[in-house]
């Protein structure tokens, strides 16, 4: 069974179609880049997959079930949706403890994750005083709380400095090598090219291209991911 499966997923906001009949599935143990221009429908797709946005039609499932029907979602899927989803008045440690509680995750594991994302020193500081990069690291720790086999990360490199990006690249690779399925949306194509195994490219909510990075570059005779992206999504016009 595919870890992640989208079937004819569609979302309309009035006359605007944000996601248009999108279908794909992801097998375990790979990092897949989810690429598209601003407004292409990436975040809406990920939010539908995570049960945060209701689809107009179609289905989005993880391990064969919609997110809301997962018996223990924190242990099934880790998600990073945005860096500003933590209460500014809560400490970093408490922000994670709040999310750990429904899944019965211990404070000790929370502390280990804070160490993994290099936030131990700031664990007892309020999130309101964190930089964007620190909040992003906290978001990654939140995604890893349940040690889940599937990770859905929306723009995980946002706000990270070059050292942070290098750290993130190693982390994502380690997670994929452990057999996890990662779906990573990003605007940073050069960074993505070094990290992902496969690509899903969408434009105006529709699937434009899908395949391994090497195959796609060869098929479209592109020298880089950026060239491929510009070739397929030229000024917002679908080829």
């Amino acid at each position, binding site marked *: 069974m595919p870890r992640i499966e989208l079937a004819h997923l569609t979302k309309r906001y009035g006359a605007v179609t944000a996601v248009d009949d999108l279908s794909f599935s992801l097998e375990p143990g790979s990092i897949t880049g989810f690429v598209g221009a601003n407004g292409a429908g990436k975040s809406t797709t990920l*939010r539908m997959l*995570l*049960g*945060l*946005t*209701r689809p107009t039609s179609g289905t989005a499932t993880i391990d064969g079930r919609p*997110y*809301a029907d*997962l018996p223990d*979602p*924190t242990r099934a899927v880790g*998600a990073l*949706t*945005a860096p*500003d*989803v*933590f*209460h*500014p*008045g*809560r*400490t970093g440690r*408490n922000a994670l*403890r*709040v*999310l750990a*509680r*429904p*899944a*019965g995750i211990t404070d000790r594991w929370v502390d280990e994750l804070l160490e993994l994302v290099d936030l131990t020193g700031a664990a007892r500081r309020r999130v309101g005083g964190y930089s964007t990069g620190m909040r992003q690291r906290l978001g990654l720790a*939140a995604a890893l709380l349940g040690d889940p086999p599937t990770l859905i990360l929306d723009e995980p490199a946002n706000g990270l400095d070059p050292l942070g990006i290098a750290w993130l690249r190693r982390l994502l690779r380690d997670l994929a090598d452990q057999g996890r399925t990662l779906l990573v949306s990003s605007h940073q194509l050069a960074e993505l090219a070094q990290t992902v195994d496969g690509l899903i490219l969408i434009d105006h909510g529709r699937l434009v291209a899908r395949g391994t990075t090497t195959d796609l570059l060869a098929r479209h005779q592109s020298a880089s991911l950026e060239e491929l992206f510009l070739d397929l999504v030229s000024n917002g016009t679908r080829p």
Partner: protein
Amino acid sequence: MTALLSTETVKLRTLPTTWIVAALAVAASAAIGFAAVRISIGAHEPLHLAALAGTPAQAMWFLAIVSAVLAGAGEFQHRTIRTTLLAAPRRGRVLAAKSAVAGAYGGLLVLLGTAAAVVAGLITAAASGVSFTGSDVSWAHLAGTVAVGAVFAVLATGLGMITRSTALAVGAVLLWRFVGEGILPALLHHDGLTRWTPDGTAGALIGIGDHPLAPWAAALVLSSYAVAICGLAAALFLRRDPA
């Protein structure tokens, strides 16, 4: 459900606002208790413990409402609703747990406030060399005061979830309390209507107001308001996606 109740309790406990509001409740109630006793002594009126215990009720109810609005609307304002729903995707249960914990906290605030007012009043009277003529406490009224704080907090959580804005929700409460409750009976040419409003039913439960409803009827009507608001909040929460 136990895990969700525990989660909402941790959320409340880990925010400085919770402790600030509790400290404010104690300080304000103590000041109210002190002032009430000083005013009674100055006016040569007899001091009654039951009356003293009821003095901070309105202020504590308001604090309970504000805290509950912060718990409900604050989730949307700080966008924590996303992580909340990722950890617990069943929205109805999230709302139920949030309302229950906000209600418990609201009741606790009222209890704390009442205790602070009584202690401050007793100390003030003793320091002034005056003793209380009535030392009976109406336990029914005390329970009513605490229960009203809890029900108002549940209602305010629902209001916060509906408006998704703390300013809008607190504004709506103030508008209703100071304008709606006053002008509605006049507009409808029905003075008896005040018995049925949230404030009127709350008054009936603590033994104040003209021709109040019977306590059981007041409790039923007040609870119905909370159920209606939370029902609407649940319907909207299930339909409207978080931003």
